[in-house]
């Protein structure tokens, strides 16, 4: 394995550890927390496609 690939694999291992640690202490969302988080993401998402009517979404497949 090259040095570059070895470094990538080290990062992946660190990420696996990081996520595992997060999940060990994960707690359920309350309804209020979930609603607040959705609002936060909708604010940055400004989703460009889902707000379109279905025929525009289908049209965009060919354009």
């Amino acid at each position: 394995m090259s040095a570059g690939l070895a470094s990538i694999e080290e990062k992946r291992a660190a990420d696996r550890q990081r996520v595992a640690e997060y999940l060990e202490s994960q707690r359920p969302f309350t309804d209020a927390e979930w609603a607040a988080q959705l609002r936060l993401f909708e604010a940055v998402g400004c989703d460009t496609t889902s707000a379109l009517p279905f025929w525009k979404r289908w049209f965009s497949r060919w354009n």
Partner: protein
Amino acid sequence: MRYDLGTAFLETLVFTMELKPASLPPGFGQTRGSEHEVWLSADKLRVIKATHAGEFGRKFGPDRFATLEEYLERIRLLNEEFAVRWQIEGVCGEGRSRRLITSQPAYHGKPPTLAEIRQFMLERGFEFHRTRFGDAWFRKEDRMLVSDAEPKNAVMTENGIMPFDFIIARPASSLLKAADIMRP
């Protein structure tokens, strides 16, 4: 589980127990994104995601809409690369009504900034490219390409960024050349 996702194999998966039938549970459609409808699981620990009917998310390049095969590959690569624990729950419907139901841990946090995402990607060896198909991050060592690395597609948690919805693939050389990421 690691495997090459050939079309025939995928069809076998769909029609056997590997991609088992799933129904849309209560709560479906709490919020709608460009690729999925999303809701919180009954135990409030996971986020359930259903692709839009007849669609399997987006992809980098001129075609924009991914196939089922490409979507499954994206799930595999996102787990392999960032360990986000995205798992397949099953398929719902048939033909143009078919949806893939998946789930991920419900990460507490807020959208990261673009600067935080940039740092996250640089630390993992990706280089930024502004292309005709949109912004993308490419790592030449393993030819991994990440697109849609936007604040709406990741959560900044107490344990760092969880990129739950980045689009990831190992594209063909022809696409990398068309995007001017790889020179002929």
